[in-house]
């Protein structure tokens, strides 16, 4: 992996002056610059390229309406190449050299963490559109994806109350997002009175493909007479052999349902969905949800990308929401000045694609509805459950001992990491 990245970064570095020249020449007109910081090559390219296209689509649409404040929007696209340190470098380039007014970007938590000090130092503005593990709130970042209480906790609630699950397998890929999420879930389940012997936690490496003994373990664990479910934070490729093995060992969704947090329409496209039918996924958006706003967005996407087969997914919706919120904030503030836009954003609302409202909260997260969907054989989801109303995103989980007392509030407290018991603000403070 390292060596490939080296080659890539070498090429990118060689190409950088060229691109710079291009963007300089385009600078002549008075425009508002929008930075797009998504990997267009490397392992994450599969997922992130669609987000880049989504931002471009939104910019295109806004320009057709005449731009913002009478100025056209101009995208500045860079490629951090799935290389985490390069994310920081590219963010610095966007802010210091190109002077972009906002950045839409990042997918993995590690890339966000690497960009974080840069946007804080240079007072940038980043919209982050992917579900993540929480435990973070920066003044310069707006999190339009789900926090754990907007995805993992409601999914577990659904399984516990509606499906009657008594025994839990927390199966994940071995890195930060699954480990933090599972820690939160374990604490939550124990708080709900689930015995430690009824929880099994398991981690496998990235790209794991030999699932026989893991699945056999799940099967044994699930045959103890209590309803069992698997909460899966398995990431990427490893899902396919996992579901295949479940099918081969005759574990059906009716017996042991698997609810996944990172399997969406994009991942299911072009997959043999037979072994997955009936299994569950928890998201804040599904392409199959029948609302006028959603239909319009999908139609617009198909027109923009010139392909009717392309799917629309949750992080794309989060990107759309983030973009709309930023446009609103700039229009309301009457300027693209980062500090003013950041102060204007909390409290703003925009309709989401599923008929609800996304409101920016003082902790820089937004309100989101939670849906549970069952996989259909055409790779889409049937919604089987949803929350009554939107759930406000909680940056610091209430179920972890370290973060229980911590609050993020950029409106009154002006702090992203405020300890309610010691009354101290650690980290960024304004």
């Amino acid at each position, binding site marked *: 992996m390292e060596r490939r990245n080296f080659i890539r970064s070498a090429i990118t570095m060689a190409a950088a002056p060229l691109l710079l020249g291009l963007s300089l020449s385009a600078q002549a007109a008075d425009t508002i610059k929008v930075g797009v910081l998504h990997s267009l090559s490397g392992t994450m390219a*599969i997922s992130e390229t669609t987000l880049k296209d989504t931002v471009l689509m939104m910019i295109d649409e806004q320009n057709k309406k005449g731009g913002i404040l009478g100025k056209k929007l101009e995208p500045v696209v860079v490629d951090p190449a799935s290389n985490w340190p390069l994310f920081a470098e590219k963010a610095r380039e966007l802010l210091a050299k190109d002077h972009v007014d906002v950045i839409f970007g990042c997918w993995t938590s590690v890339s966000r963490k690497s960009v974080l000090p840069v946007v804080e130092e240079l007072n940038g503005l980043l919209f982050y559109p992917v579900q993540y593990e929480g435990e973070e709130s920066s003044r310069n970042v707006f999190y339009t994806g789900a926090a754990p209480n907007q995805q993992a906790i409601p999914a577990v609630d659904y399984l516990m109350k509606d499906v009657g699950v008594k025994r839990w397998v927390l199966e994940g890929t071995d890195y930060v997002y699954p480990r933090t999420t599972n820690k939160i879930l374990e604490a939550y389940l124990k708080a709900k009175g689930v015995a430690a012997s009824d929880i099994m936690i398991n981690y496998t490496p990235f790209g794991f493909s030999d699932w026989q003994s893991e699945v056999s373990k799940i099967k044994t664990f699930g045959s103890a007479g209590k309803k069992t479910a698997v909460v899966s934070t398995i990431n990427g490729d490893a899902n396919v052999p996992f579901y295949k093995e479940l099918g081969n060992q005759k574990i059906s969704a009716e017996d042991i349902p698997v609810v996944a947090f990172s399997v969406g329409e994009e991942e299911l496209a072009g997959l043999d969905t037979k072994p997955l039918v009936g299994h569950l996924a928890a998201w804040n958006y599904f392409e199959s949800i029948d609302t006028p706003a959603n239909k319009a967005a999908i139609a617009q996407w198909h027109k923009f990308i010139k392909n009717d087969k392309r799917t629309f997914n949750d992080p794309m919706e989060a990107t759309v929401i983030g973009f709309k919120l930023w446009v609103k904030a700039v229009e309301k503030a009457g300027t693209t000045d980062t500090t003013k836009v950041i102060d204007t954003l909390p409290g703003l609302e925009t309709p989401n694609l599923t008929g609800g409202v996304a409101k920016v909260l003082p902790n820089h997260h937004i309100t989101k509805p939670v849906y549970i969907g069952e996989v259909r054989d055409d790779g889409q989801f049937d919604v089987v459950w949803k929350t009554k109303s939107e759930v406000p995103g909680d940056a610091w989980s209430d179920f972890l001992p370290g973060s229980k007392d911590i609050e993020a509030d950029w409106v009154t407290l002006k702090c992203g990491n405020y300890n309610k018991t010691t009354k101290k603000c650690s980290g960024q403070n304004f």
Partner: protein
Amino acid sequence: MTASSKFRTILRAGALGLALCVGPAAAQDESPAEAPAISEIHDPATLLAALPDAGYADKQAIAEQLVQSAGAQAGPALRALLEGRLYSDANQRVVVVDGEGEGETVALRDPLSGAALGSAASAALTKIGSNNKLRKALKGLLARLDLADADPDKRLAAVNEALRNLDAPAIAALRARRDAETDSKVRDAIDVGLAVADLASDSADTRLAAVQRLSGELSPDVYNALQSLVADDGSGKRREPDERVLMAADAAIHRIDNQRALYGGVETLFFGLSLGSVLVLSAIGLAITFGVMGVINMAHGELMMLGAYTAYVMQQLMPQHITAATLLAIPMAFIVAGAAGIAIERGIVRFLYGRPLETLLATFGLSLVLQQLVRSVFSPLNRSVSTPEFMSGSLVINDALSLTWNRLYIVFFMLLVFLALQLVLKRTSLGLKVRAVSQNRAMARAMGVRSEWIDAATFGLGSGVAGVAGVALSQLTNVGPNLGQSYIIDSFMVVVFGGVGSLWGTLISGMSLGVVSKLLEPHTGAVMAKILVLVFLILFIQRRPRGLFPQKGRAAEG
């Protein structure tokens, strides 16, 4: 009110057209509540006609009503619904689709009478969907119908299905069937079910008899029933009041535990052997190019990837015949990867003999080129390779042990490939020349062997075998540009551990590494198991640098 409690309320009301559940099952609010309740409809055809527009809860009510009114005749329709073969066509008729017709059309049948209804374009049909809850209910209903089926296997499956969810109607159905049953296997299964039901009896003697009947039964449902019999009731006392029953139950549980442990061991061994087979398959091609020829081929993984993509292409070419396509892919992959191997040898490797470091770098560069080639031709996304019907599912030996077919086939396939390679190397003139060149090139040339030609053929053979391994891997893992990378390290590991140049060494080392990882995995987790195996290997190589089966004699000095 949550969606599913809504489902339940609707079910109780039993009224058609009140379905307000979320998602595509919605709609129908326009038809008012005056429509007759499902429980009042008795005509099967009318019930079926209501299916396409019903919500999931209504569908379940309709299915139950269908069984009540039509009995066994409802079976095919429900099975079609369960398997997703029930559609509504352009004329609002409910039809069963079975099999493909000509081109874009499919053959239709009437769900109740089974009469053929001609064919229709598949685009004009709307599928009648189901969800987990509905499928579970359908399985239960079908099991009750199947209890009277003429086929004993179906009856057995039905009894086992009933066992999993032993409620009062299921017990009643089993009791009713017990005396009419002629097949001894099915009768045994029914007896087990009735014995589990008897565990809740008031009479201690009945319970004792039931426990004795259940001793040695491996089904998890039986085990759980026995466990709950001897479990604490929360106040430190055990739920079973009778001492004799308790003793018998404890003994039965002990016996089942022992048997489960035994079968668990067999299962782990099988997992290990199947993982070992995958390792041997991916390494055996390398054992030839690296072991026999001494070429460090970093593009070996990409040759496997080419094989896997060949399987994908074959399936794309013959979408109607997945099994045939997959089987044909084996020789095709051998040819494709073998040809690529010969091209690599002629184009690159032959200029670099005797310079291992440069060979390593050149083939590594080549592996990047091949990956990018596949990305450009097929897209960077993983491709989906279907599993042929005969390879999915598992071979059920008993309730505690079942072996998945795909893994079983891969163990056999590996043995076949290994045997074929041994035959080629030991019994053919090509093999003789290969061995001669690898042992003493100069002498072989002096005897008239065209060593250049042999080099190319050997490299082609090793590469072809890698392609064949790729077809096997396409059934287990993702087919994508990175497929090769994830196996190359393991392949080198197996070859080095087994002893460079020894096919038997590769077989033994792959198998033992597989078994060791699978033995470790339950105790240490998958991540730690991998680390431990690597540490063990490093220590082993320190002690015996030439691997398990070092080459002896002249070849060892070469």
